[in-house]
């Protein structure tokens, strides 16, 4: 176990190099966020009831703010490209020889990257949330807060395993970027990045519930906003956990098959 602490530590130190880059990126990321909030404000301005699909303006704005928080802590940014490059360039050969598990190694680096990114993104994001504090909803009770934290951790695992498995396509195809972008596009809509999923027609939203996508973003955000409450929180967390377990099994299976195919080009 100790060796993975070293990996985490290494990852922390490596990503610290990019701290200014992270600050810059998080700040620029606020521009589209501001834009989308403005659009929603314009829509609410013409709503006499002050509600869109049972969201009040504050809840809608908070939805996008919480997404930004969850994203900072769980979204995969560079890891998939690096994994694919490791495979293509034959760098994974060394992991096959060492008593180090590649998936665990990658997860440590991913965690380190997220921690450093969040540590720097928190500055502009917190300032922005403070500006919008009148429209920022906090979790309604302790159970929601606890549920959010647990579900956030599971979201991070799901995000990581999803990207890890996709990147393993590099065992079979030369150029994985397009596959990653296509999968990302689906996750972007079906995960709730663009809009809350309960804005969709009920049939579509219901169908999405049988896929892992809502558990990659929408679920923890709903818990934070108190739109999922009571037993439903823990039921959702259980479903999310099952998706993580399934994703883990798939990742392991694909890795085993990939290794059999692997020819260590240039390694």
């Amino acid at each position, binding site marked *: 176990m100790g060796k993975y602490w070293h990996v985490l530590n290494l990852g922390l130190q490596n990503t610290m190099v990019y701290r200014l*880059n992270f600050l*810059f*990126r998080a700040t*620029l*990321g606020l*521009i*589209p966020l*501001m*834009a989308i909030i*403005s*659009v929603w*404000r*314009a*829509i609410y301005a*013409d*709503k006499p009831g002050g509600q*869109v*699909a049972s969201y009040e303006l504050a809840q809608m704005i908070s939805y996008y703010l919480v997404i930004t928080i969850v994203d900072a802590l769980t979204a995969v940014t560079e890891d998939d490209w690096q994994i694919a490059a490791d495979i293509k360039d034959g760098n994974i050969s060394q992991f096959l020889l060492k008593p180090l598990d590649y998936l665990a190694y990658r997860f440590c680096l991913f965690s380190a990257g997220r921690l450093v990114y969040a540590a720097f993104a928190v500055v502009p994001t917190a300032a922005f949330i403070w500006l919008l504090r009148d429209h920022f909803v906090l979790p309604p009770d302790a159970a929601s807060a606890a549920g959010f934290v647990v579900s956030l951790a599971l979201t991070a695992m799901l995000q990581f395993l999803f990207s890890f498995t996709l990147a393993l396509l590099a065992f079979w195809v030369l*150029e994985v970027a*397009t*596959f990653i*972008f*296509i999968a990302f*596009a689906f996750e*972007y*809509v079906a995960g709730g990045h*663009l*809009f809350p999923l309960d*804005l*969709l*027609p009920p049939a579509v939203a219901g169908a999405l519930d049988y896929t892992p996508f809502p558990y990659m973003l929408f679920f923890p955000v709903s818990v934070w906003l108190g739109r999922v409450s009571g037993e439903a929180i823990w039921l959702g967390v259980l479903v999310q956990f099952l998706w993580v377990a399934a994703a883990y099994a798939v990742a392991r299976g694909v890795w085993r098959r990939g290794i059999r195919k692997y020819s260590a080009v240039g390694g």
Partner: protein
Amino acid sequence: MSDRAQMTKGVSAGCQENDPHSAYRVSRYLSLYAALWRNSVIRELGFKVNFLMWIVVEGLWFALQLTFISVLYLHTEHIGSWTKWQVVALVGASHLIQQLFTAIFLTNLAALSEHIRTGKLDFMLLLPVNTRFLVSFRQVDLGGFVNAAGALCVIGYALHRLNHVPGLTQVAGFLLFVLVGVLIHSSLMLMLAATSFWTVRAQGIVWGYYNLFNIARLPDEAFRGLFKAVFTFVLPMLLVSNVPVKMLVDKLSSPLEMLLLLALAALICAASELLWRIALRRYTSASS
């Protein structure tokens, strides 16, 4: 090393100034561009599947934006005075401009910081061609044109749903403003990329610029205050796609917006040329 840079600058400045036959020059640059096109086509033919896959990726992200608009309009009739199909036309126009920009400029301008970092720019400065021309037009991304055609189809369908047949001047004006939009994007991007003459690590810039495209496809009436002022008068993102679509669907309230867009375009072009010249003067090549 600095005298070599001096020398290369002399060469590029020379070719800009002492060629009196401008008609000859235009035809020479056109044939040069044709050669660059041929080159790009041959390059793309080497990776056919990848070429098609990228078209799918871009098309998918376009569909995603349209989905977003449809979902918004499930819950509202209008944003400001913009109706659903007007916004669809707006998203289409924004995509059209973005894809034309991608096809002609994006790869080239994004590569500039790498050319500076590795000193490859030396070779470009040595060629008897205007360096900005070479830096801007070296590669063509053909997939962008395919996606631009897709955007045109969406705009056409939106007009059909609006029951609106634009007049000839409207269409001509629309196309003119689309070109102006591409010009604005490329000039802004060149300015951003040119910052790599000062700081070597400018890679994040391309990514940062993409955030701005996200604003361009939204209706201007949704914005107010400082945000609107900045993205109208400084970085005219709220004009580049809004004005051509307003022109097309009879939404322009006064000609002022058109004039503003044209004036800002001229200003941004001049600024980019100025910055480009200042930046080139600073260039001392890599490894010096």
